[in-house]
């Protein structure tokens, strides 16, 4: 690098970001793989058996990171959407639509693992718990975002329209969460609270490693997906012809 100043705005152009993302994603993917292997090993073989829940509790090592990521990705997606609306950058919309399927996947994973956990612990696949219900609604919001994006032909208009929707959704997520929580306390006498956070330290370590692993996975997969979106959107340009050839 000749001059030491890095022009960050350079990477807001899809072309330069395509190459940057191409350099970055293998690192994130490698980190995700290593951390997943370590995290799963700890969660299956090192972490002790839970006194109350037996072996069944081990699903939290997937469940908790997935739930966290499903919420976090929505916020990141909304932030990209807002950035795109404000600065009218093409890349922001692409990032938002690259993140949406991963977020929806995590929301779905969180619901499925929650159901698998709930069956032995609560005796039911599904309870109308505030967290379960709001994750379900979050999944609907993701699906709405993707459906709106898919149904508009012009990609720029699709980006901007779904950006408005993502922002409206982000404003609504806390309102929905608290209203569902209150509804839940009104309806349900029997509490289905989690046990207190008296976790063994190996459990906590395993969980943290899994959280970081899910982060790395989400970043890697979003970068790969945004590279595909860039190629698709810019397919008429010369540089793509060179890049693909």
């Amino acid at each position, binding site marked *: 690098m000749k001059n030491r100043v890095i022009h960050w705005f350079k990477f807001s152009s899809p072309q330069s970001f395509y190459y940057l993302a191409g350099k970055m994603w293998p690192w994130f993917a490698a980190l995700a793989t290593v951390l997943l292997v370590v995290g799963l090993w700890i969660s299956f073989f090192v972490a002790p058996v839970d006194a109350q829940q037996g072996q069944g509790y081990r699903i939290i090592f997937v469940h908790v990171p997935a739930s966290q990521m499903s919420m976090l990705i929505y916020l990141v997606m909304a932030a990209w959407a807002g950035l795109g609306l404000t600065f009218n950058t093409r890349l922001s919309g692409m990032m938002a639509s690259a993140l949406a399927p991963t977020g929806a996947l995590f929301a779905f994973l969180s619901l499925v693992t929650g159901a698998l956990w709930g069956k032995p612990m609560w005796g039911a696949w599904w309870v109308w718990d505030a967290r379960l219900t709001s994750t379900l609604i979050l999944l609907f919001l993701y699906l*709405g975002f993707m459906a709106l994006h898919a*149904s*508009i032909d012009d990609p720029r208009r699709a980006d*901007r*329209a779904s950006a*408005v*929707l993502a922002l409206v959704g982000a404003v609504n997520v806390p309102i929905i969460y608290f209203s*569902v929580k209150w*509804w839940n306390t*009104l309806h349900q006498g029997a509490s289905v609270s989690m046990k207190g956070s008296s976790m063994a330290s190996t459990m906590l370590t395993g969980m943290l490693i899994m959280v970081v692993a899910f982060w790395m996975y989400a970043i890697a997969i979003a970068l790969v997906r945004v590279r595909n979106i860039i190629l698709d959107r810019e397919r008429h340009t010369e540089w793509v012809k060179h890049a693909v050839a």
Partner: protein
Amino acid sequence: MTTAPNTLGAGAVMLAVIKREIALGLRQKGEVLTPLVFFMVIASLFPLGVGAESSLLLRMAPGVLWVSALLAAMLSLQRMFATDYADGSLEQMVLSPTPLGLLVLAKALAHFLLSGVPLVLMAPVLGLQFGLDGRALGILMLSLLLGTPTLSLIGSIGAALTLGVRGAGVLLSLLILPLYIPVLIFGAGAVEADAAGLGFGGHISLLSALLVLSLFFSPMATAAALRISLE
């Protein structure tokens, strides 16, 4: 032509928009009446589906009526901008010197007057069929009166986003129904909470808060969405 004076104030323009919407609605009575009939049909399906046991119906009534109201409000939403979009008057509204957000607000209010108010007036009749008493009917009407304008306002965002989009009707419900959930919870909850002896004040306050929030924010979002749809 440089200084074309804007003779009408924003309030007068909004009033004109509301009057126009109502005149259009009254001329095409079918479009105003169909959602109402739909509301009645949906609400009447529930007893047929779950059985006519009166204690069960009484318990379900607020929720059923509110869900039916959501769906009925949904039906007429698509019409909010579609005809203006088709004949080009929407573009004139975007170009007019009156802020688009205020025009959108007027259209949402007109939608409330044409679809929300009839629902409020119809609800007690259906509520009687479910065996609600006078007090519960009053709370139901109050909650609908405060809730349906919020439905029109939030719905206007969806209507603007799906303007001229393939399969707009189904898409609109996918986008908007999740956002309606807080209104549904507090609207139906008001009647239930009162029946449980908890008082309905909290729920009504929260419904009003949602109304105020959506009065402020949703015209901005709708105006932004309309500009995107028209560009």
